[in-house]
């Protein structure tokens, strides 16, 4: 019971933070520099790891499905399987997990330390709402960068799969056949569904990480505690939301 009220309180607090931040949406144009800085931090610096990881995930996906589909003589559909799995599921989820781990944690650490060292209080007395200066640019940046990262993850995964198919002896499906299969059974909506998922995950992660950072109380020790809490909460939310968003998208 007590737990439940605490959780409902946090959900309410997070939504309140969202509303307060969106209220400052008209100030976004004159915060363009901050927005770009966050795009750089969230998007550009995540590029190398997103590229490498999605490449290997696509490769492993091809390897595993090549092994299992050989039994059905369905090797020509590996492209379809890798393409769909990357676009609909693994691309968005993997990018979201990476964002939670390397961007969400950094945001929580930064805001929590600003809170603990009274920088947030200083902003408040200076009549500069932290929602406007700290939360809004980050939310805007993730909305722009998340689809970009997801598309890059998809492409890298697809090419990773193609390479494995072509050069693995036991599979040896050439990349032309691979991509034909990939295109034949994939609709535009498969890709856009994945991008919508990525967008939802990214937005929720950044919002929750900002909320947890700004609500840190106590001394410097609590900064670490907040970061752990933010990452764990983000991971749980990604996987739980994944189910419900997927279900909603499949129904529509």
């Amino acid at each position, binding site marked *: 019971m007590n737990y439940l009220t605490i959780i409902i309180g946090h959900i309410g607090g997070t939504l309140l933070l969202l509303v307060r931040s969106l209220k400052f949406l008209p100030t976004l144009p*004159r915060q363009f520099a901050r927005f770009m800085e966050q795009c750089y931090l969230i998007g550009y610096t995540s590029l190398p790891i997103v590229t490498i990881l999605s490449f290997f995930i696509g490769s492993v996906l091809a390897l595993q499905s090549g092994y299992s589909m050989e039994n059905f003589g369905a090797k020509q559909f590996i492209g379809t399987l890798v393409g769909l799995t990357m676009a609909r599921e693994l691309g968005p989820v993997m990018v979201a997990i990476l964002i939670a781990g390397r961007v969400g944690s950094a945001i929580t650490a*930064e805001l929590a*330390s*600003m809170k603990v*060292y*009274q*920088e947030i*209080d*200083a902003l*408040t*007395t*200076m*009549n*500069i709402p932290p929602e406007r*200066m700290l939360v809004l640019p980050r939310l805007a940046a993730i909305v722009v960068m998340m689809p970009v990262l997801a598309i890059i993850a998809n492409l890298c995964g697809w090419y990773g799969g193609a390479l494995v198919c072509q050069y693995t002896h036991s599979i040896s499906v050439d990349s032309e056949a691979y991509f034909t299969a990939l295109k034949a059974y994939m609709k535009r909506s498969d890709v856009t569904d994945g991008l919508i998922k990525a967008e939802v995950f990214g937005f929720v992660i950044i919002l929750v990480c900002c909320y947890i950072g700004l609500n840190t109380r106590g001394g410097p020790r609590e900064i670490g505690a907040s970061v752990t809490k933010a990452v764990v909460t983000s991971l749980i939310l990604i996987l739980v939301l994944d189910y419900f968003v997927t279900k909603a998208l499949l129904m529509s």
Partner: protein
Amino acid sequence: MSNSTFTASPFLGKTFGVTVANVTKKFGRTTVLKDVSLEVKPGEIFCIMGPSGSGKTVLLKHIAGLEIPTSGEVRIGDFDAADPETRNKVHLALVFQAGALFNSLSVYDNLALYPREHRECNEAGIRERVMHALSILSLEKAANKFPSDLSGGMKKRVAIARALVMEPQLLLYDEPTSELDPVMSATLTEIIATLREQTAVTSIVVTHDRDLAFAIADRVAFVMDGKIRGVGRPADFKNPTDPVIANFLNPVIDLKNPRFKQLENSHE
């Protein structure tokens, strides 16, 4: 902008008094402020003294609107300090004890943040305001440094400079001279007094520093254990009649009967 004054504030002379009316503050089960009432007149330098942990910082945060009273009320002029709207009506600056500088920004950007965010003037105007505030505290050379590269005393001065850029109508200081050497303490004391002199800004100074309080305060309040123990002009406390205040202001170091021994005995 004339250089003969500290700040050519558009709010010159427009300052506010502060009324603290029966404020009680509880954190969970502990009561930190117990029915505190104070009246600070416009333009006054009002010092709040008292032992560590007596609730001075919490009281100051109530005036700044960072804490909401459990009961009672704080008013700045005619405005409720707890109402966020008040920040749009009163330029209030709080100099935090630890500075609370923005660690990710240079000293210059720390000072420039306020006028930039409130779009009060163009970059050239901001530069003039920032450099002027820095020069008052002889910090010109530190403009491009980051807070992590500054000594404790410099952080405090930057925090005061940042408050000055806001052209405050109410200036709150939390222990501005703690951790500073005697000369720097005297310098900051002079700065606080001169600022009030030139801008007539109401200044509330939380401090342990007897020299500061007795040199520049118009009135002093003593906070002990969350309650007001006494308020008056500094002259009234030259020879205090209240033994608790007397002991706080002039603690006798008695090696024959040390305090820590008394504390030990009181636990038995």
